[in-house]
């Protein structure tokens, strides 16, 4: 019995092993779907783009470089793939995403657990305050706490260094805490 490492799965995929590909698909479908839906806000587009994306990965498997961890590669390439599709679909609708690396993610109240571990965050306005954070802080927060990725993986996806990821998260959480306490004063 062995636990499958990313490296092993990736190697098998490159050799054309459909079983390994199905393991990859099943482990990442949900996470990429949620990420794609956050970016595109469109269920059909997310579903279609994921089909095309995975097909693209499989068809180009022989040209893929060797990987130790798969998550950053999949998140980053899928983001690019999806944004290209969005641009093709409508030039006007998504005109605000001219910069490929920055996305504006929006959180909804029903995604948040009402009983937060950090007591200060048990606040009705949390979603609103969260959405008011700068885009890059929001993306780091999403990838860390929603997708459950490690800071090192996030740094590859956002194309910044490790320290910048920690700083983004730190600033985000800190200003959120301050915002919450200010919001409490006015309630």
């Amino acid at each position, binding site marked *: *019995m062995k636990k499958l490492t990313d490296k092993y799965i990736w190697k098998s995929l490159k050799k054309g092993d459909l079983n390994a590909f199905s*393991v990859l*698909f099943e*482990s990442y479908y949900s996470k990429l779907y949620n990420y794609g839906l956050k970016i595109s806000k469109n269920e059909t587009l997310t579903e279609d783009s994921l*089909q095309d994306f995975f*097909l693209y990965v*499989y068809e180009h498997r022989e040209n893929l470089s060797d990987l130790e961890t798969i998550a950053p590669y999949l998140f980053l390439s899928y983001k690019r793939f999806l944004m290209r599709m969005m641009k093709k679909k409508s030039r006007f609708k998504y005109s605000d995403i001219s910069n490929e690396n920055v996305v504006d993610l929006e959180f909804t109240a029903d995604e948040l657990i009402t009983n937060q571990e950090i007591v200060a965050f048990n606040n009705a306005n949390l979603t609103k305050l969260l959405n008011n954070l700068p885009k890059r802080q929001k993306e780091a927060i999403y990838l860390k*706490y929603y997708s459950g990725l490690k800071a090192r993986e996030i740094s590859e996806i956002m194309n910044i260094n490790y320290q910048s990821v920690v700083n983004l998260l*730190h600033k985000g*959480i800190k200003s959120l805490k301050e915002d919450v306490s200010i919001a409490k004063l006015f309630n």
Partner: protein
Amino acid sequence: MTKRKYNDINDFLEDESFENWVYQKNGTDINFWEFWIANNPDKSDLVNSAKDLILGISFKNNNVSEEKVALEWQKLQSKIKDKEAKPKQKVILLKKFSVAATILIIVTTGFYFLNRNSKITHKTHYGEILKVKLQDGSDVTLNSNSSLSYYKNESRKVWLSGEAFFKVDKKKATNAKFWVITQDLSIQVYGTAFNVSTKKKKTDVFLEEGDIWLSLKNGETKQMLPGNYISYSAKENRVLEDKDIDNSSLKTSWKDGTLLFEKLSLEKAMEKIEESYGYSVVFKDDKAKNTLITGAVPLTNIDICIEAIEKSVDVTIIKKDNSLIISKK
């Protein structure tokens, strides 16, 4: 535990024992950090920031359903096959007969959904073993008090509660997988013989021959090799047992109607009897619990079963209503 210096926030974030303290997970780590924090009051701001960063914001688990993922995989798989088999001809055909094709699709999807709804379930009572042959030629032996269901058009995907032994036919041409889904995990099979048993809070899988992959509820994937035995609980979110078993008949003899015990305590052995026959077992004498039993007992006749146990270990078993009362001779 580390004795290094903690000067900036990264030193805390990169320390596993610190994270354990934040989640109150490991006694030694908790003690260490309580002590460390009390002795380093100047670092309390850093400690709090690092703690906040680890805890962060809690989001709900918003997973796409297993069925949906399986459906999307099937879609992708057929696309891959289409591309690999004569891609050019396909395009021409589609253009020529696009109207006919549209109609055909509507009709088949109609059938598809009709068929999907016809779910077939096989159930066994206590003391009953059932052999089922699925449409694709796979053999399933269902142990007592178990149930197996699948959709008529999709007999290579089955839901199991209880215990079953599978002998799955390999579909060489299509590489089509066989799926077994339980409350704790799903198993992907590529032609193989294995045993699955679900209990209240766990699922046990034993692989006799071939090759299977497990997808556990917690998202982990594991490949099993022949002789591997794994017990996993989704509720506890951990693998309870992971070992190799040389004598495979200990795990699979039930399918031929007998239970094999090899130096098993009478208490454990009687748990098996409880599960198979639905009686509840009462030990009048605690000492009898630890007596070791070796031998075979039948699974479909409780009276012979009782007699066999009485003969091999020194106990008297009285059957009364729904209980088996055990006392030392």
